[in-house]
């Protein structure tokens, strides 16, 4: 592109300027130049001085020496303004854009009258008033300072925000590790019993949990639970619920009574009105008798050794934490050798895929029926895989928790 004729000298000038000169220019006017602040102040002082002198000049009957002094000062001022103007052109990445920018035009207008008028052209004296446009130069300088200030403030705030975010993330990671540490690492060793479990939280912190509790007379308590919602509040409530149930289980061997006691304890310390669905059962490993009570949880499955699936229905009570004084009936079922107990939360059955379809209870029952013959760990792995494959790219909306227990030898 060819520049318009009057600009050719400018272009030629800028072409002559080496990178070294640009480096020098940025020392004085770059946003990080070490002398930028001093230079900026000098220009500002000169602008104010020259505006004042324009006022003084207009006073009639000024002594000659004053006029001469002001004239010399004017030449010096214009020289410095010109120097500044050229520096800005040199430093600008897009010189053309700078020349036609608001500041570029103002800077040029501030010095142009001097050059147009020569050293004294009386017939153009009126044009000298154009020098008053230097007032506008003030404005552009202030604007620049303000913008720079704001940019720096913004950068500082962003840095602080990033730091806070990183800290929050680190704290959440610690909290998550603590929460996972609450979950039992291993099933109590008992002859004829084997169990496996897994929890996959939807967000960093889940509201689901499972628990194995060693009870008097060699009995084992098994818990699966789902706190409403997820995230930090659910995780806190989960810890409170798990601890209460774990403590109360030793004193209330009847599962229904244990849930009733836990419910009352939770209702007394529930500022956020959260609640938890709990399935709690107590297994006597010697006899295979399983007693259970349900506080609003999905009924678990029993996969009989031969393959058929049974659902542990039986009237339950309200979710825990919602209303005190609830009753939770206890039911009994006899496990036979090789039976598997499959406890799960609705994160399994209510996993959605990208087409908005539910994984559903039937799919889970089919998996348990077909693949339930192996070890508990294998079945847990198999179901998690199946759910993950089904969900595909759809985001996990709820915690997925699963516990499988076998009793006796198949």
């Amino acid at each position: 592109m060819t520049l318009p004729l009057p600009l050719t000298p400018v272009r030629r000038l800028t072409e002559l300027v080496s990178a070294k000169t640009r480096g020098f220019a940025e020392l004085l006017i770059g946003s990080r130049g070490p002398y930028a602040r001093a230079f900026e102040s000098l220009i500002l002082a000169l602008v104010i001085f020259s505006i004042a002198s324009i006022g003084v000049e207009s006073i009639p009957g000024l002594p000659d020496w004053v006029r001469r002094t002001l004239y010399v000062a004017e030449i010096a001022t214009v020289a410095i303004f010109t120097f500044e103007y050229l520096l800005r052109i040199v430093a600008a990445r897009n010189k053309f854009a700078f020349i036609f920018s608001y500041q570029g035009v103002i800077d040029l207008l501030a010095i142009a009258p001097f050059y147009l008028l020569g050293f004294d052209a009386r017939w153009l004296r009126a044009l000298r008033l154009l020098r008053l446009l230097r007032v506008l130069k003030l404005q552009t300088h202030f604007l620049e300072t303000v913008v720079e200030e704001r940019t720096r403030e913004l950068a500082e705030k962003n840095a602080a925000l990033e730091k806070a975010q990183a800290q929050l993330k680190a704290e959440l990671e610690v909290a998550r590790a603590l929460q996972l540490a609450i979950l039992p690492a291993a099933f109590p060793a008992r002859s004829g019993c084997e169990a496996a479990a897994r929890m996959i939280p939807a967000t960093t912190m889940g509201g689901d949990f499972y628990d194995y509790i060693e009870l008097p007379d060699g009995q084992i308590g098994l818990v699966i639970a789902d706190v409403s919602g997820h995230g930090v509040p659910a995780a806190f409530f989960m810890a409170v619920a798990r601890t209460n149930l774990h403590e109360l289980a030793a004193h209330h061997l009847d599962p229904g009574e244990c849930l009733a006691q836990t419910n009352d304890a939770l209702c007394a310390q529930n500022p956020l009105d959260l609640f938890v669905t709990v399935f709690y059962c107590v297994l006597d490993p010697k006899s295979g008798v399983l007693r259970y009570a349900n506080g609003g949880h999905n009924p678990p499955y029993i996969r009989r050794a031969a393959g058929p699936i049974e659902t542990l229905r039986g009237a339950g009570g309200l979710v825990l934490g919602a209303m005190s004084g609830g009753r939770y009936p206890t039911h009994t079922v006899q496990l036979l050798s090789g039976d598997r107990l499959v406890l799960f939360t609705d994160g399994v059955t209510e996993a959605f895929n990208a087409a908005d379809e539910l994984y559903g209870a039937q799919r889970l029952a089919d998996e348990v029926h077909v693949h339930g013959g192996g070890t508990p760990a294998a079945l847990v792995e198999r179901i998690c895989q199946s759910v993950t494959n089904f969900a595909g790219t759809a985001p996990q909306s709820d915690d997925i928790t699963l516990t499988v227990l076998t009793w006796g030898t198949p």
Partner: protein
Amino acid sequence: MNLQIEAMGDVTFVEPAGRLDFDAATGFQEALERTLGGAGKPPAAVIIDGTRLDYVSSAGLRAFLLAARSAQRAGIVFALCALQPAVREVFELSGFSRIIPVHADRASALAQAQQGRT
């Protein structure tokens, strides 16, 4: 989630559509609170019509629980009707159908609400 609220006399029907999951629960709860205790004269009954409600998560249940409590405090009848089978099962399994009345349709919910007042 999409929410349709219509007042018929002193009974307000709320018809949520779609999935009431963790993300939708807060907005739904706020809408219910506004309906129960907003500006102007409070309704005598608020009935949730579940015709177009496809799914309720545990966070969604919590919104119902909080609304039921607010309604009880304000002396407003709070009930559900026309739940889809899957949603109805969630209410039954969780035991919520024992603390919030569930009716077959709007007409029976309305009849029950009026009976409760006389």
